[in-house]
């Protein structure tokens, strides 16, 4: 079985899990949430699940030890015993839900999906256009940064050598040509936009339509968040 939902629904679903992880105060509820996140991951891509578990498990072990044994050193410590197994488990499960969801978000949501979601939520087109162009040109800036760094290294300059202050100073030599490059690119980009006769009001008029499954998933997400707020914060039920 493969999960076939729109990018807008996917983003909303993932954000809902993260929000719920911070609202829930019950270990069992959190456990269900965490399992849901890992199940979605398995449905999307089993390889991703394996990679995530490999990365997340050491972090969860450290989190469990820290929150269980050293919670009295936390700046949020509000009394109670020094060792608290329940609290350690609760924080670890919460962290696992947030990490798994973030992992899905970073691995599967492409910049284009994010732009579609912004358009769907009726954000100003100008802002969405700028966001789209920014995403489009991130790799250009990253390439320029890498090339400048390589050129400096090829001239015998060791960027990552010396004290922290010296290293920060070293990086100023990367910033100047990178800024020049960015300004040049911005000029070219504005010229290219002029040549294409772009009208902001026309940008992204034909966004995708939602299926029945999308609407169902979105509705469940909203109901869960509302239910969690009523249950935990307002005290209904």
């Amino acid at each position, binding site marked *: 079985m493969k999960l076939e939902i729109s990018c807008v629904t996917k983003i909303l679903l993932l954000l809902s899990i993260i929000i719920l992880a911070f609202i829930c105060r019950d270990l069992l509820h959190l456990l269900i949430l965490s399992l849901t996140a890992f199940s979605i991951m398995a449905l999307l891509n089993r390889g991703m699940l394996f990679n995530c578990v490999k990365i997340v498990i050491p972090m969860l072990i450290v989190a469990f030890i820290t929150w269980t044994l050293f919670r009295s050193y936390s700046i949020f410590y509000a009394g109670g015993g020094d060792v608290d197994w329940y609290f350690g488990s609760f924080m670890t499960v919460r962290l696992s839900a947030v990490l798994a969801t973030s992992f899905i978000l970073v691995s599967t949501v492409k910049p*284009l999906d994010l732009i579609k979601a912004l358009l769907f939520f009726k954000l100003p087109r100008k802002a969405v256009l700028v966001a*789209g162009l920014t995403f*489009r040109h991130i790799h250009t800036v990253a390439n320029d940064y890498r090339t400048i760094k390589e050129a400096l290294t*090829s001239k015998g300059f060791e960027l990552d050598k010396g004290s922290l202050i010296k290293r920060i100073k070293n990086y100023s030599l990367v910033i100047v040509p990178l800024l020049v*490059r960015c300004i*040049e690119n911005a000029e070219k980009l504005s*010229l290219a936009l002029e040549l294409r006769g772009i009208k902001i009001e026309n*940008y992204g008029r034909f966004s995708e339509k939602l299926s029945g499954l999308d609407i169902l998933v979105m509705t469940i997400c909203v109901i869960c968040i509302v239910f969690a707020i009523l249950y935990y914060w307002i005290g209904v039920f």
Partner: protein
Amino acid sequence: MEAINNQELRVVELSCRYNKHWVFRNVSFTVKPGEIVGIVGPSGSGKTTLACCLVGVIPKKIKAEVSGKIYVDGRDLSEIPFEKSIKILNMVLQSYDMQIFGLTVREDLLFTLENIEHDGEEIKRRLNRILKSFGLEKYVDYEVSELSGGLRQRLALASTILMNPKYIVLDDPTANLDWRGVKELANILTELKKNKHGVIIMGRRLKGFESIVDKVIYLNRSNTQNNSIMNSQNLPNDTVERNICEPVIQFRDVWFKYKRDFVLKNISLDIYRGESVTLMGLNGSGKTTLAKLINGLLIPVKGVVRVLGIDTKTSSPARMSRYVGFVFQDPDKHIILDTVWDEVTFIARNLGLSFDYAEEALKLLKLENLRNEAPYCLSMGEKVRLSIASTLASNPEILIFDEPTTGQDEETLVTISLLIKKLKSKNKTSIIITHDSDFALEVSDRVIVMADGVIVADGSPKEILFNNKLLEEYGLEPPSILLSKTLEVG
């Protein structure tokens, strides 16, 4: 005076200047629908400025003093609003990457279509038609960053064509293309010609377009017409002479990968002291990766790279810069300091060397009078010479030139060519990465051809570049002398 209401683009006595100096003066020519006109000139001759004037960007969007007239199908361009004129006359920029707005091929084409078309069904129909005519169907959901340079340029051209301009200006379209990309572009331009589009190609040279260009206009800094598209060449020896006792660079069973796939596969190679070696091959064949392994910027995944006996795994690239100089492609990216002198002596200061070699490099590259100038104010040719001088200031044993011919004028090319010969006379080793077979013939005594991460041919320039089978199989640019013979026979 001829009537000016013909169906043509007519440029009459066009001149342009930004401040005191004229970029070009009194340029006149006509382009008819279904005609391809080449405008050839060295860097700094005003090709890009002319292109911007032709599409009305200058003076409507970029301020400059312009005299003369441009008529499009009998109408004065200056009287047509810019929003309308770009639908008659448009342009593909030299940095075509900047003209791609979408994250995928589909998104980029839709970006333009949504701006000019309001019917969803018509958008789909036009999208499918343009994908088919530009051979982009199978790449439709590819991310732009996954496409080769040739495909990205094709996409930029396709997006421009969506606006259906009658006349199209291409600013130096071959600057970053390999020979296969050039031939693909030539095929697309032939189609545009058949569909009665008027095309203007700006460039340093028009190699690959000889059979489709109807006329050529030469533009140089003084706007006299004395350039030649074809270079005259002396044929090199057909054997490689090597100082076989002393390989300065040794690759032994070298494998390298960035992420998933290996980009270099089991490379074993010896380069000898005093050799001028040219690396050729299609974009993505592994040439630059191989060069970066030499100066330690990259470290092999498997195998050993030894430079002057030093295993590059045991030395940092900064330390390797004492022995290996790397002249990068785009000098603008690497200028960091305030004066020419500071820039040239940067490497010497980093390595704790004396400034004698820096002085010598300044003289050799005729920059001694510019030592107090700001590097950003130099011309492109001067910036390239500065980039080479700043590398020579450490007196390296090995010098690597990455695409030194891209966008360069003849004068700079001659300077680089003479420098490589001088280095050879001093028994220093040069490695040149280029698609330009004429330049390879001029400067090298050995040519290595790479394809898909392996060395597929290694021999003298004559053995490699006059072998039609090799040229065809690995998409190498044929030397002009070979092309001119083919054209004569044709």
